[in-house]
């Protein structure tokens, strides 16, 4: 594993999230109030371009840097986990104003209190791990 390339990708991601203001609680608030196109622009332009890129990868049978064909795994189609899990995630996203990526970015921007957020998120993931077999998926 070459470590530096993943750190570089992370740095690019962090700068992007910060400079597009996707790390801003107020931008997320604005998005959920449909008061600006900004956040939708980021997400929808990424999806539109992403679909083209993924189709291109599939049709060209593009190989990864390791020399194997790039494989994109299909996700399971049972809806309950996506709707229920997604709803719970959405509650947290709107409340905290951050999703997992921006949380790491803000930690580096000087908002060290996000260490507590990270610990809470790990606790949430841990509790999910404990309850997983009892939850509808």
């Amino acid at each position, binding site marked *: 594993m070459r470590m530096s*390339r993943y750190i570089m*990708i*992370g*740095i*690019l*991601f*962090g700068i*992007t*999230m*910060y*400079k*597009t203001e996707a*790390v801003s*609680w*107020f931008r*997320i608030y604005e998005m*959920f109030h449909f*008061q*600006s196109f*900004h956040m939708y622009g*980021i*997400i*929808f332009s*990424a*999806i*539109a371009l*992403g679909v083209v890129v993924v189709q291109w990868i599939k049709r060209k049978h593009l190989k*990864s840097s390791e020399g194997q064909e790039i494989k*994109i795994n299909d*996700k399971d189609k*049972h*809806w309950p*986990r*996506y*709707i229920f*899990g*997604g*709803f*719970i*995630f*959405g509650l*947290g*996203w*709107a*409340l*905290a104003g951050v*999703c*997992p*990526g921006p949380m*790491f*970015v803000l930690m*580096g921007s000087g908002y060290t209190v996000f260490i*507590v*957020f990270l610990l*809470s998120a*790990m606790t*949430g*993931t*841990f509790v999910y791990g404990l309850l997983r077999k009892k*939850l509808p998926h």
Partner: protein
Amino acid sequence: MVPDFLIQIKDFISQPWPWYVGGLMIVAIMFLLLYFGKEFGISANFRTMCAADGAGDMADFFKFDWQSQGWNLLVALGAVFGGYLAANYFASPDGNIAHVSDATIESLKGLGFNFENGEVPLVPEFYSWEALFTLKGLLVIVGGGFLVGFGARYAGGCTSGHAISGMSALQLGSLYAVIGFFAGGLFMTYILFPLIFN
């Protein structure tokens, strides 16, 4: 001395970025990870971190080869560095503000927010250690973190894994997840915010 063109590049990067630059960069990041044989999805790190702390003894969900996920922890670490660089070297010339719409500023005032000179800061004041001792700060940081961590793993991904990676690969499951994200976000914003912020 620093050459002029480097200062020009720095000034160029320091402007607030428009949405299409954001979309382009995110896809570039997703493509690079695919090219390296990985998949873009930040919240998987929570599971890796739990497993690394020994959670595998308590639930099978955390019994996996977490060391193979080290690359993703490095992406998260890079995001921390990126946040540091952006805040310290590429700050916007007009200050650390969120360039939200006037309609947003008005509705925030209705929720009890006060802004000096009508400028909205990048982050709210309850992003602080002191705020952890208030009910609002505790709800946002601890409650929000728990919901994000629980929901992301239940749904099998977050904004990067589903809204970007999954939707780009035309996955029906990811579309359901994004519908869930927005349903939860709208419920929080319209039903619960008036109770929390007033």
